[in-house]
């Protein structure tokens, strides 16, 4: 089936070519990082995780969100999603691959990555994160490919795939929960030491992922003969409309706990992110942009009139995506490290090589999603013909 990705319109080939170029630049800078060390990034002794881990954290959410299609379709027999479940699964494959690449890019000694498997350490959450991420990648590859192959032959999906589909539901929840536990179980990091970390991760995932899916579905409709469907897009919109306010609610819960309890080492991080601390305020404009975009998106989404308007819905989804990306892709990680446990402040901002490596990994993800979508759409178009 993969051969369907090899041919395409000029526009398709230009897009793929462009992605390859971005990937090449990323790889070039990665080679430099490999040779010189992580010193070419903006990270420091105080802020030891930066852009890479933040992207990883954000993308785990995007990957987990495929479950928002699988649950209604397979568990509640919401037939309309049959058309687009595959889009969710293929998006998950792209997203998990990016997650794994971001972890790899962040390692000081990538050649030793196998040590995690050679010396399995059940007391480390990172070990479990590796297990669940690879498992989820495998599940989505298996389910996506098997169902699509059956469809291509005009057959129903084989029976044996069902248990794997059901397994993928709790598994999707697990990848984001375990990722939240990477942060939420550390003493002395007040910003992360919160029980709502995992729920907050899930709500932001179920907002950002479906939002991206809506945008992709609209794009697919525009560029191909395959229409993911108005109803499907609206249902996804409703999911975002529930998840995003929930995410903001959880943020409000944190703000209450932190500020009402008045405990300094929990407050300082929020103060740094939203107001600046001792004159350090690199993230303040970003965090408020995130809040403003999220609130604006909620208004557009919960209002049925605006949600049903596909143009406004697209805007709301774009805003949701950017708002959650800033929250997790910038604030979540930096905010946890600033100030450091000694209450000293070292700010962090990614360097150009670091940003280009990250962009290269995003391009790899985009390429994977493009190729997989091309295949899926080709099968659909063949059905239409």
């Amino acid at each position: 089936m993969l051969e369907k990705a090899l041919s395409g319109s000029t526009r398709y080939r230009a897009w793929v070519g462009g992605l390859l170029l971005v990937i090449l630049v990323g790889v070039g800078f990665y080679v430099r990082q490999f040779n010189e060390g992580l010193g070419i990034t903006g990270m420091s002794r105080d802020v030891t995780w930066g852009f890479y881990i933040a992207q990883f954290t954000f993308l785990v959410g995007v990957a987990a969100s495929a479950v928002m299609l699988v649950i209604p379709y397979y568990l509640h027999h919401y037939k309309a999603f049959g058309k687009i479940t595959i889009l969710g699964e293929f998006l998950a494959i792209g997203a998990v691959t990016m997650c794994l690449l971001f972890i790899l890019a962040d390692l000081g000694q990538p050649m030793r990555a196998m040590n995690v498997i050679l010396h399995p350490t059940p007391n480390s959450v990172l070990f479990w994160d590796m297990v669940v991420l690879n498992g989820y990648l495998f599940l989505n590859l298996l389910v996506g490919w098997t169902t699509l192959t059956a469809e291509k032959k005009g057959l129903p999906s084989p029976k044996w795939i069902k248990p794997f589909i059901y397994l993928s539901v709790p598994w999707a929840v697990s990848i984001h929960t375990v990722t939240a536990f990477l942060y939420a179980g550390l003493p002395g990091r007040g910003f992360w030491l919160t029980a709502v970390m995992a729920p907050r991760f899930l709500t932001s995932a179920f907002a950002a992922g479906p939002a991206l899916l809506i945008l992709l579905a609209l794009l697919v409709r525009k560029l191909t003969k395959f229409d993911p469907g108005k109803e499907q897009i609206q249902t996804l919109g409703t999911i975002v409309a529930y998840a995003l306010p929930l995410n903001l609610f959880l943020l409000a819960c944190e703000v209450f706990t932190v500020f009402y309890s008045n405990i300094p080492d929990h407050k300082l991080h929020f103060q740094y992110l939203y107001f600046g601390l001792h004159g350090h305020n690199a993230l303040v404009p970003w965090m408020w942009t995130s809040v403003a975009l999220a609130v604006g998106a909620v208004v557009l989404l919960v209002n049925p009139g605006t949600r049903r308007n596909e143009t406004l819905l697209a805007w709301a989804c774009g805003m949701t995506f950017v708002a959650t990306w800033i929250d997790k892709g910038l604030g979540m990680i930096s905010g946890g490290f600033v100030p450091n446990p000694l209450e000293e402040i070292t700010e962090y901002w990614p360097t150009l090589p670091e940003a280009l490596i990250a962009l290269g990994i995003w391009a790899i993800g985009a390429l994977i999603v493009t190729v997989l979508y091309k295949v899926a759409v080709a099968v659909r178009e063949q059905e239409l013909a």
Partner: protein
Amino acid sequence: MSTGEGKGMDRRGFLRLAGLGALSAAAVPAGWDLLKPGAALAAGAGAPVAGRRYAMVVDARTGCPDGCRDCIGACNTTHNIPTFADEPDPRRHELKWIWQTSFHSAFPGNEQEFAREDLESKQVTVLCNHCQNPPCVRVCPTKATYQRPDGIVMMDFHRCIGCRFCMAGCPYGSRSFNWRDPWPRNAATGEPAKLPNPEYPTRMRGVVEKCTFCSERLDRGLQPACVEACKEKLLVFGDLHDAGSGVRALLKEHYTIRRKANLGTQPQVYYVIGA
């Protein structure tokens, strides 16, 4: 065939298993304990006598004489710790095993408005606390960070993948990462840099490191380099399980505090603050 024979086989099987168990227990220290982070590595050569628990007492009453950095210098030389003085911002890639910081940074949350003024302006010597319940060991995915039976929290440079999870886990900022080559080779000659202490193994970029209580010196019967270097004898090192040790004497005589003791990490560096 008969039940009796079956039983016999079972017993033989059981005995064989038991024998294997005993064998493995002898070959590697306590088979089950292997699951414990670092237990296998700790069993290697030079393993110290179990039953000890090493600790340090920092006498911070008078404070260090002005500008004295003897302990830090001795540590840096002993462990080939580079300074990166040539970089535009040497702090960026800094490696620190033992260093001085403000009272506030060493004990955040312990400051009081009307307390002795000299406390606030005092510099406090800090290092890895060799926590008895170390979060850095708990989070390490490769057992590159592990704890010896005598309580010393160790780093295996050759095992570390550089994920820096331990740095996020340590609530004291006690760990450093090699963001670049610690001792780059001479670009023209390709010669490896001359290390201040050729006896101490160098490490490569991309791995984490931290104070090891000079385990390599302890195993030769020496005191940690910083303790030896302090002319004022403000650092005291010893075995907490030895009732006659200097650390026990100080703990008995003075009220001591530990950094962020409320986190449950059980730091093994104690501070004598007041008279």
